């Protein structure tokens, strides 16, 4: 065996994993979580078991004797008139757009016989550039959510069902009543209005009800960034980033690869600057300062953990450092830096700032300072000044004017308002997603509140009227991305519950008459554009998913930083004591996606927690508080308290406690339960903006809460046990640019065995296919955003199993993302690695299957024939990558975890509609795993064969994970063709196979992670 000591980096998946020692009982270490082999607790007694057995035997007898061995008769219901272009069984794709928190993803929605089943990215959309986010992927499940309200309800908690006409009349009458008063007393609560149609409707509203107040309640909107842009550029100024050409990026508490606005486009562009082939290729460098480890933090070349409150000081020091280096400040920003307070930083931070300043200046015009939404306005404004000084305007930082957006009041003002009688909540949930200290829930309960939304959530329950609305896949609409791109949303299906859309309802309020959404959207454009609009352009917009051909005047705001010193003086607070940080959950956002079982079960990108949030604390802070994972903490901020379990997060800044928002809800069969409601503590700040961090305190509360994290399940690597030292197995491999340049074949050196020593015990299967499928995953660009996992889930009918089953290690994800830490337990670096079936050429699973249910295809696929599988699980046992999943229970029959389909047949029928008809829905007792989307391979092959070609052209087959990956890290194709994209990638010297020493010859290979540290800081 090779001495690969120099590559013994010591990767670990959790602190427990790191500290694990020899386990006497397990004679080594535990491969599976304790309890993985226990049966689920059921109340099935012996007597009932025999009863059920007798009944099923009798049933079997009955079917046999009545001779019904034939399958039950099935009907075929053809259309009376088949719509044009519709071929039964062939999916159609329609362009639309998904929006969340100002992030617009142009999407193509797959429609199977009229049912939208899957969201794909739209390559024509500049915001998503062919990718989609985890939220966009999951929103198709929301459409079919059995919890969606199906009828209008009147009367608060004990609501009664009303019919649609009565509801419409009631809303109409309510609004009419305010017309005489010029709208005084009427309030609307909107999300950030990024729909041009809705903006237009709000202008109409201003004319009809000039005194009506419009509030905005949207924790996912970039309110601080918008406020800073207006502070610097005047009203209507908007700034955003473009990272495609950058060489140095500084993320100041900005998770721009995860939860920040426009994260899809930013990920795509940033990944472009990290895709390297040769050691001499240019590669961007990423500096990050943040309180808790985020996806962006895992990708950092240099990362400092610090309090959110200290990030502003780093920015101030950076400005000073740049000033010291003689950067040319813009005219209107000259002398501003001298007026800013001087800060003193500790030694490592100062070194970080000096190196960063030099790097930024050296790469000026090709750098970007990205300030996170969690930072206050003045930090954002300072960021724009630094970007301007680095001449990044027009490159890394871009500006435009938004003249159409109406000025909306922050929802905090509603809490203070005394003149409001009736509140119309349009898709917002202010009773939940506003700082609880505002007391909006009580206030709304006392007013005439009308709630328009998908679910009867906190606001829906206290509202006088709760009116269900159409999902975005059921309605006409439009959205404008932050860079100005407008997309038309088109309905994929008639409203499942006969609802009207938000736009239609808003039209009723704004104009007094309800028009259908199609007319509202289309004729709105006709009216605004006049002669420039015709049916042909409209059809092209709808088809492409992008509104094009409207000339835009590139008016740039005049920037002026004179107000910055004052803003700093007003906004800057010393960072002392314990800081409680709030952030948007990368899984459920601000809570609006909380009823999605896909998202709840999805492991958190960093902590790998499922079905919960937690208070993330560093190991040192946890030790100080005397808590471990799952021990309840009492957090206090501004006199309000919250009990929430602690979870020790490596990479967390000491004396900070990070809490994701969006949990602890009390409605819906999925949202009700998971996690703890951090809005209870969230402070409301100056000008109604949210304060994302604040001074607080924490104490051990006593008691525990079960937190389920998948970080220790299915690990590929045994921990390094004391007294059992062995070399690190090649699972994740990384090097710095310098190391790579010195040793271009470093991945080869990481293998433990010489290639000559590898032999097969038996002959591997013959691979006679004309094409050989394989995959390449670039660890240098994969940011671990989880979008691929949800894409896989929706493409392949993967069920959710619920928290209790995940706790037994029984989650079903075909593709998971492993996250490895390395180094110091408090401040490690991290690597993420997507892990699905590796499609080994000499697959260990195949040789142990007693019934040949898993066999090899001539094209190199590791096939799984569900109907042959008898459920021995030998294959899973023998899989070195632990990617096989077993249906311990009939998870696919569960509409929602814990709720069986017979409890809710209507809901079951709804949930069925999402299933992909091209993939078998698996039942209890069978093994399953990634198939490389064999349904897509077969489809492409059949199409090629019918056209008379033997081979499928490269790039025709795009797997679900590859399609949606914002970073473009996954590439699939024919590895037998040296010209194919995947072969080109595999030919790179960074290419390696995980656990090559086992000689499985996996078809999925990885490109090693390259870090690009600043030599000055090493």
């Amino acid at each position, binding site marked *: 065996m090779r001495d690969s000591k120099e590559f013994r980096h010591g990767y670990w998946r959790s602190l427990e994993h790191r500290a694990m020692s020899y386990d006497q009982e397990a004679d080594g270490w535990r491969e599976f979580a304790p309890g993985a082999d226990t049966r689920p607790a059921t109340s099935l007694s012996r007597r009932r078991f025999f009863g059920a057995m007798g009944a099923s035997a009798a049933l079997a007898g009955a079917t046999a004797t009545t001779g019904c*061995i*034939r*399958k039950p*008769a*099935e*009907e*075929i*219901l*053809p*259309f*009376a*008139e*088949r719509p044009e272009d519709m*071929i*039964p*069984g*062939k999916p159609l794709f329609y362009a639309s757009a998904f929006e969340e928190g100002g992030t617009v993803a142009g999407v193509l929605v797959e429609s199977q016989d009229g049912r939208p089943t899957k969201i794909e990215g739209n390559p024509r959309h500049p915001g998503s550039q062919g990718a989609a986010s985890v939220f966009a992927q999951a929103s198709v499940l929301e459409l079919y959510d059995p919890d969606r309200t199906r009828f209008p309800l009147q009367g608060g908690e004990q609501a009664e069902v009303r019919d649609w006409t009565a509801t419409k009349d009631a809303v109409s009458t309510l609004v009419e009543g305010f017309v005489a008063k010029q709208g005084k007393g009427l309030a609307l609560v909107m999300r950030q209005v990024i729909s041009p149609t809705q903006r237009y409707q709000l202008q109409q509203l201003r004319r009809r009800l000039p005194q009506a107040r419009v509030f905005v309640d949207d924790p996912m909107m970039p309110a601080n960034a918008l406020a800073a842009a207006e502070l610097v550029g005047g009203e209507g100024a908007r700034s955003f980033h473009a990272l495609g050409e950058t060489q140095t990026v500084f993320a100041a508490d900005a998770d721009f690869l995860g939860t920040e606005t426009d994260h899809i486009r930013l990920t795509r562009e940033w990944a472009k600057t990290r895709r390297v082939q040769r050691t001499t290729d240019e590669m961007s460098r990423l500096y990050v300062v943040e309180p808790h480890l985020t996806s962006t933090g895992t990708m950092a070349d240099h990362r400092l953990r610090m309090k959110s409150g200290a990030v502003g000081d780093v920015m101030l020091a950076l400005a000073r450092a740049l000033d010291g280096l003689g950067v040319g400040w813009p005219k209107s920003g000259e002398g501003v830096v001298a007026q800013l307070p001087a800060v003193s930083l500790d030694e490592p931070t100062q070194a970080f700032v000096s190196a960063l300043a030099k790097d930024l200046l050296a790469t000026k015009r090709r750098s970007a300072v990205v300030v996170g939404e969690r930072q206050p306005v003045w930090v954002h404004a300072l960021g724009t000044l630094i970007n301007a000084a680095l001449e990044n305007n027009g490159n890394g930082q871009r500006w435009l004017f938004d003249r159409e957006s109406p000025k909306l009041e922050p929802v905090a003002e509603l809490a203070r308002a005394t003149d409001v009688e009736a509140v119309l909540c349009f898709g917002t949930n202010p009773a939940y997603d506003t700082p609880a200290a505002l007391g909006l829930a009580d206030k709304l309960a006392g007013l005439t509140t009308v709630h328009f939304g998908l679910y009867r959530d906190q606001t829906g329950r206290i509202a006088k009227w709760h009116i269900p609305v159409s999902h975005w896949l059921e309605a006409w609409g439009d959205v404008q991305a932050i860079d100005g791109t407008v997309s038309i949303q088109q309905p994929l299906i008639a409203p499942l519950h006969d609802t009207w859309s938000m736009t239609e309802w808003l039209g009723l309020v704004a104009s007094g008459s309800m028009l259908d959404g199609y007319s509202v959207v289309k004729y709105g454009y006709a009216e605004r554009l006049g002669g420039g609009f015709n049916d042909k352009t409209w059809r092209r917009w709808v088809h492409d998913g992008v509104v094009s051909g409207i000339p835009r005047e590139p008016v740039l705001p005049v920037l002026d930083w004179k107000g910055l010193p004052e803003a700093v003086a007003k906004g800057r607070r010393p960072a002392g004591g314990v800081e409680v940080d709030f952030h948007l959950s990368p899984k459920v956002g601000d809570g609006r996606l909380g009823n999605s079982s896909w998202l709840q079960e999805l492991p958190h990108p960093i902590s790998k927690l499922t079905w919960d949030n937690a208070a993330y604390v560093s190991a040192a802070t946890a030790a100080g508080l005397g808590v471990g994972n799952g021990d309840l903490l009492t957090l206090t901020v501004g006199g309000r308290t919250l009990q929430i379990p602690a979870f020790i997060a490596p990479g967390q800044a000491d004396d900070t406690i990070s809490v994701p928002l969006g949990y602890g809800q009390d409605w819906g069969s999925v949202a009700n339960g998971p996690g703890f409601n951090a809005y209870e503590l969230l402070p409301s700040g100056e000008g109604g903006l949210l304060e994302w961090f604040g001074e607080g305190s924490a104490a051990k509360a006593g008691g525990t809460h079960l937190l389920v994290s998948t970080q220790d399940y299915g690990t590929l690597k045994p921990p390094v046990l004391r007294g059992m030292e062995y070399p690190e197995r090649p699972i994740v491999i990384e090097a710095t640019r310098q190391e790579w340049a010195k040793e271009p074949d470093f991945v080869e050196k990481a293998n433990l065995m010489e290639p000559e020593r590898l032999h097969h015990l038996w002959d591997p299967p013959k691979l006679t296919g*004309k094409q050989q499928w394989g995959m390449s995953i670039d660890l240098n660009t994969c940011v671990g955003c989880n979008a691929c996992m949800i894409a896989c889930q929706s493409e392949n009918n993967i069920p959710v199993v619920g928290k209790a089953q995940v706790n037994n290690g029984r989650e079903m994800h075909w593709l998971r993302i492993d996250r490895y830490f390395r180094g110091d337990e408090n401040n490690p670096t991290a690597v993420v690695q997507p892990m699905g079936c590796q499609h080994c050429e000499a697959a260990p699973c195949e040789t142990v299957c007693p019934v040949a249910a898993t*066999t*090899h*295809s*001539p094209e190199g*696929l590791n*096939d*799984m*024939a*569900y*109907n*042959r599988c008898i459920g021995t699980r030998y294959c899973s046992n023998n899989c070195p990558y632990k990617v096989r999943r077993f249906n311990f229970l009939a998870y696919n029959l569960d509409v929602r975890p814990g709720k069986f389909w017979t409890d809710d047949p209507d809901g079951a029928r709804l949930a069925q509609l999402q299933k992909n008809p*091209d*993939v*078998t*829905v698996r039942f209890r007792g069978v093994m399953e795993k990634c*198939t490389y989307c*064999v*349904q897509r391979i*077969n489809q492409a092959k*059949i199409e090629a*064969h*019918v056209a*008379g*070609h*033997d081979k499928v052209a490269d790039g025709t087959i795009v797997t679900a994970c590859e399609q949606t990956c914002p970073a473009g890290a996954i590439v699939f194709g024919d590895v037998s063709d040296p010209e194919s994209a995947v072969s080109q990638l595999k030919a790179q010297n960074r290419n390696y196979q995980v656990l090559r020493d086992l000689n499985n010859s996996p078809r999925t290979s990885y490109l090693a992670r390259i870090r690009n540290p600043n030599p000055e800081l090493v």
Partner: protein
Amino acid sequence: MPAIFPRWTNNIPIAIGLLAPLVGAGLIFAVWYWFSPKYTDVGYRPEQPVPYSHKLHAGDMGIDCRYCHNTVERAAHAAIPPTATCMNCHEQVKTESLRLRKVRESYQTGEPIPWIRVHQLPDYAYFDHSAHVGAGVGCASCHGRVDKMVVVEMRQPLSMGWCLDCHRNPTPNLRPLDQVTNMDWTPEAEAYDPSRDPDRKRQVNPPLHCSGCHR
């Protein structure tokens, strides 16, 4: 003490010994014969809501299969035609026929006609018509002489073994690509060699592995 069991019961073990193998063999035969799709499926002939005769339309009048099943070359399903296809002709002919009442009703109301599926594969088997038609497998190879059926019935078992028989040796079931829907074409009459057919752009290579049909 009198004997509880009469003397003849002593023969029971011998009888069981003799009968058991027979019963066992009978059971095996019963399952092999009566549980096989050859028995359960071949000849399945459900009554359809509309007494549509393939013999009349495809046989006597010679309408091509693809006039109605027009997706067969492009999609997995050889879709049952929409009612509108029937009405292309029946708006002109047999406009008063009682047998066509349901067709007219469907056309007027937009409600589909509930046809009963005859050729029904299990849900985990993914058959694709376009691939087979594109390879030159005749309709009649799997569906039999539909042009002679007044009521459509299953002629082949459509079992996995039956599929694989052809996938292992497809040549006897291949025909020129322009003869796919020709019901009268017989391999015996025309000595056809697909490998020498200049119209074929590629030679068929049917999958024998699991994921060829199961996914």
